[in-house]
C-alpha cells in the first residue's frame, strides 16, 4: 500500500507545455509515474515527449481515464485549473503553483467539496510513494521505499528530513508536502487518518511550522485517533511575530501561531518533537523499534 498515489495513478499535467510543466513531466515519467495526458488549451492533437495534449481536462479524462492531476499553471490561472480538474471528475489534484490569491482558493473549495475532489497544496512540492509513483517536483533519488509516512508544510525541509531518514536506512511509505499557504486542501488530520489506515506505514513524521493552529489541532487529533507513533518537528522557533517567513502561511499574528505553543501541544499529546532535523532519524528509529 501507500496513500493517495500508487502504481495505478493515472496522471494528467495541467500546464504541460510550460517550462516547469514539461521538465517535471519528464522527471515523473522517468520515475515510472503513469502520465497519461497533458492539458494546454489550443494544443490538442500535439504531444509532449509522447504524452498526448488536450484542450480541456474533461476531454483528457474522457479519453484516458485519468484520476489524478498536477497543476503547473501560473498563479493567476491556477485556481481555475483546479476547478476544471474537479468538475471533470479528477479525484486528486496536486497544485504546485505558488502565489495564488487566497480568495481564489476559498472560492473553489465548495466546488472541490461538491465533487469530492481531494486537493494537495497549493504552493507544495507534491507527493511520492517511493518505488510506485511520484506526483510533484520532488528529487526522487533521496527517497527510499519503507514504512515512514511523512507530512510536511515545506519543501526543502522535507527533503532534509527524508535525506536524513534514508541515510539511516529508514524508508518511506508516502511523503507529502501539503503546502505553505494559509488555506490548503488535505491537511494533517485527513492525512494522519490515511496513514493510520495504511498497512505499509508504521510511523509518521509531521513537519509543521509557525502560523495558524493546525499543529495544535493535529496534536489533539493524534491523541484521540492515531495509534501509530508520530514524531513532529516545528520550523520557525526563532521567528519573530508579525513577520511572514517566506510561506504565505508562516506568520505569527498577535502572539498566536508560535512554535512554542505547537511544541507544547505535541508534547502534551505524547508526540515527541525533534529539536533539529538531525534528531528526527534517531526518534523515528526508536519509534519503529517499539
Amino acid at each position: 500500500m501507500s496513500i493517495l498515489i500508487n502504481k495505478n495513478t493515472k496522471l494528467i499535467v495541467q500546464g504541460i507545455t510550460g517550462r516547469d510543466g514539461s521538465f517535471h513531466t519528464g522527471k515523473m515519467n522517468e520515475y515510472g509515474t503513469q502520465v497519461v495526458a497533458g492539458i494546454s488549451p489550443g494544443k490538442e492533437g500535439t504531444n509532449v515527449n509522447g504524452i498526448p495534449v488536450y484542450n480541456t481536462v474533461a476531454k483528457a479524462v474522457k479519453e484516458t481515464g485519468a484520476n489524478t492531476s498536477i497543476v503547473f499553471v501560473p498563479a493567476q490561472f491556477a485556481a481555475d485549473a483546479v476547478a476544471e480538474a474537479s468538475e471533470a471528475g479528477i479525484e486528486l489534484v496536486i497544485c504546485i503553483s505558488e502565489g495564488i490569491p487566497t480568495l481564489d482558493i476559498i472560492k473553489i473549495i465548495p466546488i472541490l467539496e461538491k465533487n469530492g475532489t481531494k486537493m494537495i497544496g497549493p504552493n507544495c512540492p507534491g507527493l511520492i510513494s517511493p518505488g510506485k509513483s511520484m506526483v510533484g517536483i520532488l528529487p526522487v533519488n533521496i527517497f527510499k521505499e519503507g514504512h515512514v509516512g511523512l507530512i510536511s508544510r515545506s519543501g526543502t525541509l522535507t527533503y532534509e528530513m527524508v535525506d536524513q531518514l534514508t541515510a539511516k536506512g529508514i524508508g518511506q511509505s508516502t511523503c507529502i508536502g501539503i503546502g505553505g499557504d494559509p488555506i490548503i486542501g488535505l491537511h494533517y488530520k485527513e492525512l494522519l487518518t490515511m496513514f493510520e489506515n495504511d498497512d505499509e506505514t508504521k510511523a509518521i513524521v509531521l513537519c509543521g511550522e509557525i502560523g495558524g493552529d493546525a499543529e495544535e489541532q493535529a496534536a489533539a487529533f493524534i491523541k484521540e485517533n492515531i495509534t501509530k507513533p508520530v514524531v513532529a518537528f516545528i520550523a520557525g522557533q526563532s521567528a519573530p511575530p508579525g513577520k511572514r517567513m517566506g510561506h504565505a502561511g508562516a506568520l505569527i499574528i498577535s502572539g498566536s501561531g508560535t512554535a512554542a505553543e505547537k511544541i507544547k501541544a505535541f508534547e502534551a499529546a505524547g508526540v515527541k518533537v525533534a529539536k533539529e532535523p538531525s534528531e528526527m532519524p534517531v526518534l523515528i528509529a526508536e519509534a519503529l523499534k517499539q
Partner: protein
Amino acid sequence: MNIHEYSAKELFAKFKIPIQNEIVCSTPEEVAAAADKIGLPVVVKAQVLTGGRGKAGGVKFTKTKNEAIEAANNILGMKIKNLIVKKVLVCEAAAIAKEYYVGMVNDRNTKSVLLMLSAEGGVEIEEVAKTYPEKIIKISVNPQTGLLPFQAREALFNIMTDGNEVRQAADILVKLYSLYVHSDCSLAEINPLVVDKSGKVIALDAKINFDDNALYRHKAFEELADYTEDEKLEIDAKEKGLAYVKLDGEIGCMVNGAGLAMTTMDVINLYGGTPANFLDIGGSSNPQKVIHAMEFLLNDKNVKGVMINIFGGITRCDDVARGLIEAFSKMNVNVPVVIRLSGTNAAEGRELLKGNDKLMPAETMSEAAQKIIAAIK
C-alpha cells in the same frame, strides 16, 4: 499589505459604508483648518500601521481649535511601536451610545472568509479572543452565495437587539464583505462599529490588510502602501526573486526553501547564535541570485558572518557549488562564510568548494551553525 485607517475609510466610503466626517492631515495647520471645516469638538488620531494607538497617546479628543493644534503637535512625529506618525486623521467627535466589534478574515480552519462579531467593541479584540473566546461570534461565509443579508442579521442578533440597528449593521456587513472580496483583503475590521445617540450605525475605525498574492489585480492599491525601511527591503528582495526578512541577529543566512530557512535560523539559535535574517533564495543555482542575496546580507551592518545552507533537490549540489563559486569570485566578502551542501550530489559539491579560502564547507546543518558561531566569536 496593510493600509492606514484613512485609506481604509476611503475604501469604506467607496463601498458606501457609513463613516464620519473626517480629513487626513500632515501638519498642525491642516489640522486647524480641518477642525474648522468639520466643526468642534474633533478627535485627532495618529495614522500608524500598528495597534495600541490609544494607549500610546496617539488619539486625542479636542474641544477647541488650540487643543486640536496641540494634539497635532504632540502626535505628529511621535513614535508608536517604533513607527513615526506622519499623518493624523481629524474626525467629527461621535456621540457614542454603543460599541461593537466586527471583522472578517481568511480563515485556515473553515477555509472560508470568517465573519467575527463581538459586543465587546473598542477594545483589543485579540485580548477578548484569548480571555473570553465565547464573546466572539464566528460565522463562516459560503463563498458561493457571499454574505446574505439574512445571515448578517442572524449573526448580529447575537450581539444586538434593536431591529433598526441590526438592519443598518447588516447592511454594513454585506457591504464590507463585498469590499473584502472585491479588494482581495485578508483582513477587514471595524473596531469599534458604533451606534451613535441618534441611532445611526457608523464605522468609527477601519483596518484592512490586502492579500499580497492578489495585489497584481489591484494596481491602484500600490499607492496606499506605507512601508517601513525593513518592509522596503523585503519588497526589493521579492522583486529579485528572494524572500527576505530582516531580523536583529548577527549571522546572515542564505537558504533554499522557506521551511529550511526557518529551520536554519532555529538551528543557529539552538547553538547559541543569533540569525540576522530569514532568506529563501528559492530553487535555482543562478549565480546572480546568490550575488543579490549576499548583497542583502552584507548591507546589514549587524551581520558578522554568513551561513549558507543548501539542500540540492532537483537542482544538483555541484551546480549550486559552481554558482556559489562564480558569485563569490565577483564579490568582496569580508566576513566568514560557512557553506553546507546536502542532498543530490552533495559530495561532489563539497569537493568543488575545497580549497576555496572564502567558503568554509560543512557537512551538516548543525556543524555549519556551530562553525559560523565559532568563526564570528
